[in-house]
């Protein structure tokens, strides 16, 4: 435990101590100052046990990280299924997935945000000029999943550490997130398929306005 210079320094008082003992001759034979002449400075046979306490690794949990990275790769791949996608767009998406992976490895929430945003941006970019809908919905669900699971893994790691048994919680999180995404995607897709044909743009705009206002209203409620 003690660093070596420390041990070294303590070998020394023995030298000055006898000098002082000579001064007080009144002390009897047993009263030499402690001859702390530790000759074996290296003998580490200490009282401390070497089995140190477990250290908490506050890193993202392994299962969640793997799931998040997998979802990010899937999301990046969906850009390929959008008809007429530039290969560069796919490249950027893969870059986003890699960024997210780096964020998970380093435990940086901002990097995960950026990675997910990049993937999402490439999805939008790919989808702007095509009428294809299905790959975009799937890609969005995968992106949100990657972002969500990545963050929850990060949170779990920060609170409980990587070593703790958290697999059950992580499966529940993954399941619930996936379910919500699939539900939202299905509803949106259903509305699009069955009701989109004759829908006036005004209705879409109004619905959008409604969504915006409701989000603001509820969001303010939370803070």
């Amino acid at each position, binding site marked *: 435990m003690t660093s070596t210079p420390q041990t070294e320094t*303590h070998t020394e008082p023995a030298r000055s101590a006898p000098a002082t003992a000579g001064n007080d001759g009144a002390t009897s034979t047993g009263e030499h100052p402690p001859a*702390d002449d530790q000759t074996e400075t290296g003998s580490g046979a200490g009282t401390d046990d070497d089995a140190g306490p477990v250290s908490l690794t506050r890193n993202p949990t392994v299962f969640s990280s793997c799931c998040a990275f997998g979802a990010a790769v899937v999301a990046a791949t969906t850009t390929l299924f959008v008809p007429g996608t530039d290969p560069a767009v796919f490249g950027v998406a893969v870059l986003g997935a890699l960024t997210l992976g780096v964020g998970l490895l380093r435990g940086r929430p901002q990097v995960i945000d950026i990675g997910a945003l990049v993937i999402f941006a490439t999805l939008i970019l790919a989808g702007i000029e095509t009428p294809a809908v299905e790959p975009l919905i799937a890609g969005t669900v995968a992106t949100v999943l990657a972002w969500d699971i990545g963050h929850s893994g990060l949170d779990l790691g920060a609170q409980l550490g990587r070593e703790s048994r958290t697999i059950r919680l992580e499966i529940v*999180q993954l399941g619930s997130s996936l379910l919500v995404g699939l539900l939202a995607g299905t509803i949106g897709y259903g509305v699009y398929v069955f009701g989109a044909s004759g829908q006036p743009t005004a209705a879409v705009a109004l619905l959008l306005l409604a969504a915006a206002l409701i989000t603001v209203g509820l969001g303010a409620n939370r803070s």
Partner: protein
Amino acid sequence: MNRRRTVLLLGLLALAVGIAVSVGVLEFTLTETAILGVGLLAVLIGLRALGLRRGLERSPGSARAEPERRAAVPAPGESFSQSLAAFQRVTDGYAVQGRRTVDGLRAAVVAVCTRFRGDSVAEATERIERGNWTDDRIAAAFLSESVEVPSRSILDRVRAAVDREPSFQRSVRHTVAAIAAVGYDGTSDSGSAGDKDGSGTQGDAKRNRGAEDRSDSNARPTSNSDDGTTERSLPAYVYQPRSATSTDSDDPPRRTTDHTIDGISTLRTRQTGYWTGIGAVALLAVGIGTLAEAPGVILAGVVGIGYAGFARAFDPPEPELAIERTLSDDDPDPGDEVEVRVTLTNTSSRFVPDLRFVDGVPPGLAVTDGSSRLGTALRPGESVGLEYTVTVQRGKHEFDPALVLVRDLSRSTEHEYVVGAETTVVCEPELRPVAAPVPLRTTAASFAGRLTTTEGGTGTTFHSVREYRPTDPLSRIDWNRRAKSGELATLSFHEERAARVVVLVDARRRSFLAPEPDAAHAVDRSVAAAGRIAASLLAEGDTVGLAGIGPVGRDETASAASVSEPCWLAPASGRDHEIRFQELLATHPQFETMPPTEESRWLSQLRTIRRRLSAETQILLLSPLCDSMAPTIARRLDARGHAVTVVSPDPTTDRTIGHQLAATARRVRRFDLQQAGIPVIDWQSTDSIDEVFARHAAGRGGRQ
């Protein structure tokens, strides 16, 4: 509030109209520009909300605590100014900080020079002025105006410029290192100390020198070689540690909660901000999709809005948890590994989707295997188990309430609870005799025993020959001399008596010190040593008692303090006594391994102890000697005629200037005590008590 409601109302209205239009009930058309405007609005709201995520608080909440680790104790000398104050006799008036540092360091130099070089105060002061108290030119120049700062080489200047270290700090570091080296570097003035060597201690000195040479040859030569002054490992400049100024900003707390809790108690509720920004990004997508008339992008946004709704849909359930804790061993020995099994049961009728559990491992125990944390989901009535291993140290350890964090399914709100579940481990220190004899003083009680005293009388070891006196027993007459010269003489032997010893443990707040935050602190080591010492003394037939100085209760609530008294066990012997001794060491609140929060009135405790001590009782004081009061205790007891021996577990370290100065101050205190005739046995943190006693016994010839 009102504005928010208005916005919400408008939103609902727009929703109704939008649905009506899309279904075809209402005929309503918007111009292209209006649609464009709405799209832009959505994009703007999205962008604005995106910024919200930046300022998000990302903390693990109460789970930041690390009950897995032992309660942290400071190392001596965390604060440089306090270490410095140990050397200052009287602070006369206000001083600027820089001046104060210089004055304090000068006082420290005087202190070490008068002790370890045999100077008088005047000589030491002159030494400082002339700058020849050290080889380190920077240190010498720093304390004296008449000494010039050595000119630095260009390389040094460049290095200093790159390091950006102020020259004041550099000088202080050099000076502290030089002070710590005084008395160690056998360079300029070791002769003055060497001259005073009595003839009896010459051998000792020689042996020590030899030992040192040996350690030199296989250890680092830099620390005390003459030319090593510049390369000498310098301590870090830490004036005031951060943890002292702010309340433990970087070090996580080591307990889940300081309070005892029955049942479940809410700590706090917090928004995790987990989904913050998803709504904004979704709106952004919808806005872009509207502008570009791309259905796919709009639908992508709709998915995002679905998630945003999910984030707001739930509230975390109120948990009703039953925690059951079992230990594999209820009566462990120190150092044993005990398996802890925790069973969590959800006794409520609601599903708990997200439960994070941090067990309240006692502050004196460290988890050495497994994890005391668990993340799970619990159906009604379901239970999960958690197993981990703790290494038990001496003392009475009560589990703190466990920390339970519950989130809703979307993880956006978190409730923190502490759940009380009492479990106590009592670990008694081992009473195994020390291999080497306990270093006692040679005064003893009037009972026969095995402690060899300095007095002549009956015994086995030859003491002296004296003139025959009429009442001397025949068996002690020196018949050889009688045969040779016809004179009667009597042989005296060293009297062998029993010692009556009180082991006094210094458990004041200032003695809770350790070289590393997680290492065994001085009080722990003292108490462990007290057990070993008592065992060996009792085995020798001596009588041993136990006393403690320090705060009795650990809680701020005065109840604990008023209930129990400071530890006192009168010297006695026998098996019963041994068991009581062991119990007291394990369970007495004064010797708890958890550092106390407040200082005690130790002076009155000392008075009580003094009153209880009978004459001829020896004191074995176990104290780290890291504040000025510890030597006072030893001296006061000594002044009352009790033979005091100090065994001092060394908690000092040398990382920073404060640490080094504190170690030097401790060295000075040790020296002063020895000068006053009180032997001090220094006990390094790397050694066991057996080694220390064996070395001491070898050093002085030992007790037969």
